[in-house]
């Protein structure tokens, strides 16, 4: 029997599609009640496949997954009753009004008849769609559609909400509003949220904990600051005029330099105590007649965490 205190528990989850594509190979993580948990990774990493299995839309090939103690493959109906799922592609009916979509969803989710109207109008108000609730969804903007979808995912007051790439296709303003809405839900409704994203800043700002997923595996997991502190060093970026590979070799062998990585005309270094070492790096290069056009110095970001654990930069994957 699974512990009921854990909202989502995934153990060794694997998924191989019929065409032989191995989407997930042994993913494990857990999410506590009331947490916002992020699955962060590039397209094709296995995020959507994981969420589809957890929301009972897809069968797992191996491993175990439990939602609030219910096994997703053995008790799908119980799981469906207590979770809400908002897909990446819009699942709304474009030729029905916003209100009709919500009403239908409420009925399908078996919301008690007497509560339906109240809840639907409350949700419409909350997502700011009351004034357009009688218009066809076809006339909505992308942000409005997404807010309607989220309202639909919430109509039966689920304990667990799955959001697959919730902010894809949203402008920065709508995205910011969505984040605030999710934070509000967490605070007011104690709802557990599992979201997938390929926006580092989203994961950083929104999530209590993150699992970075790459090529069907969880490469690392923890709170955003835990992950950042796993990189003990600072990041120095040097833009080099010429002879970049020679420069890289010189820098690699210096004291205090932990690693170097060439990206175009720049070298990214992980260094211990960056503030102190930075001048000596530049002096050393100038001594070998290599010019440094610019330099920058950063504390680690999630992007750097990503780089460290996957061996490649995040935006190269997208």
């Amino acid at each position, binding site marked *: 029997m699974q512990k009921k205190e854990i909202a989502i528990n995934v153990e060794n989850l694997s998924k191989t599609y019929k065409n032989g594509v191995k989407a997930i190979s042994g993913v494990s993580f857990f999410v506590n009640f009331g947490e916002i948990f992020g699955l962060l990774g590039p397209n094709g990493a296995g995020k959507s496949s994981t969420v589809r299995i957890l929301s009972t839309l897809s*069968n797992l090939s191996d491993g175990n997954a439990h939602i609030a103690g219910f096994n997703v493959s053995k008790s799908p109906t119980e799981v469906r*009753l207590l979770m809400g799922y908002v*897909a990446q592609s819009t699942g709304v*009916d474009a030729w029905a009004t916003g209100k009709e979509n919500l009403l239908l969803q409420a009925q399908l*989710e078996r919301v008690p008849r007497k509560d339906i109207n109240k809840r639907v109008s409350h949700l419409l108000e909350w997502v700011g769609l009351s004034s357009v609730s009688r218009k066809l969804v076809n006339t909505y903007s992308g942000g409005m559609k997404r807010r309607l979808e989220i309202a639909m995912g919430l109509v039966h007051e689920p304990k667990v909400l799955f959001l697959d790439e919730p902010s894809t296709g949203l402008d920065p303003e709508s995205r910011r509003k969505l984040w605030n809405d999710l934070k509000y839900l967490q605070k007011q409704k104690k709802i557990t949220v599992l979201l997938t994203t390929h926006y580092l800043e989203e994961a950083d700002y929104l999530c209590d904990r993150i699992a970075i997923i790459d090529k069907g595996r969880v490469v690392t997991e923890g709170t955003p600051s835990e992950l950042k502190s796993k990189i003990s060093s600072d990041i120095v970026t040097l833009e080099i005029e010429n002879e970049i590979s020679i420069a890289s070799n010189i820098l690699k062998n210096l004291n205090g330099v932990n690693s170097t990585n060439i990206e175009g005309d720049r070298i990214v270094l992980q260094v211990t105590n960056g503030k102190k070492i930075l001048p000596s790096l530049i002096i050393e290069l100038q001594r070998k007649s290599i010019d440094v056009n610019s330099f920058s110095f950063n504390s680690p970001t999630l992007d750097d965490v990503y780089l460290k654990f996957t061996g490649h930069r995040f935006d190269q994957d997208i």
Partner: protein
Amino acid sequence: MQLLKRHTLATLRLPIWIAVTLVQPVIWLTIFGQLFQKVVEIPGFDSNSYIAFLTPGVVIMTAMFGSAWSGMGLIYDLNLGVMDRLLSTPVNRGAIIAARVLHASLTVLVQSIIILVLGYILGAKIESGIIGILGILISAILIGSGFSALSSGLALLTKREENLIAIINFFGLPLTFLSAAFMSEALIPDWVKVISFFNPVNWAVSAARNSISGENWSIVVFNCLLLLVFSLIAYFFATIAFKIYQRSN
């Protein structure tokens, strides 16, 4: 039930769609009716008004074609993620298919009534009265629900519009012409007669036409039973296809 309402609302929002599906039978009824007026003079033709002969045939043909396209809506649902959303709720899996089939039946009912009225205006009298009309409607609904279930099943298996369109176009017209929809049974070639014996469209045409004349109710009942079996098999096929679809994910 709520799903049925969804489909129905969607259809009512597109009155142009009802108009388009009605244009075709209107063309059949008026143009064919006029063009082949003299066919009834061929010795052996068992009716003396071609429009009266044609009307039940057009009702059945419209029911079949209209319903055969109902899988298209299903494919849109698959592609747009609507199906995923439905499946992530605890909704009864059978209801998803049933709502489509019921909606197709409802559409067939409305269309058939309109065609019958049109036929009446053009001179097709239904001698057997209300019972005859009922017989036509039942056979139209049965063939319609059968074909919509068949179409839904194919949609779930093929998952692509192009495939479904190809299949419907490939089978639709031949099934109509390999029946007594346009020509008296007494006058169609023997080989067509043999094929039409196994053709559900012909069962429906035969049931509808015999309902109009009201002379041979046993044929009507027998053919309606055949149609019911056809419809049930088609529905069974659709539910199996749905299971296969869910498993393939």
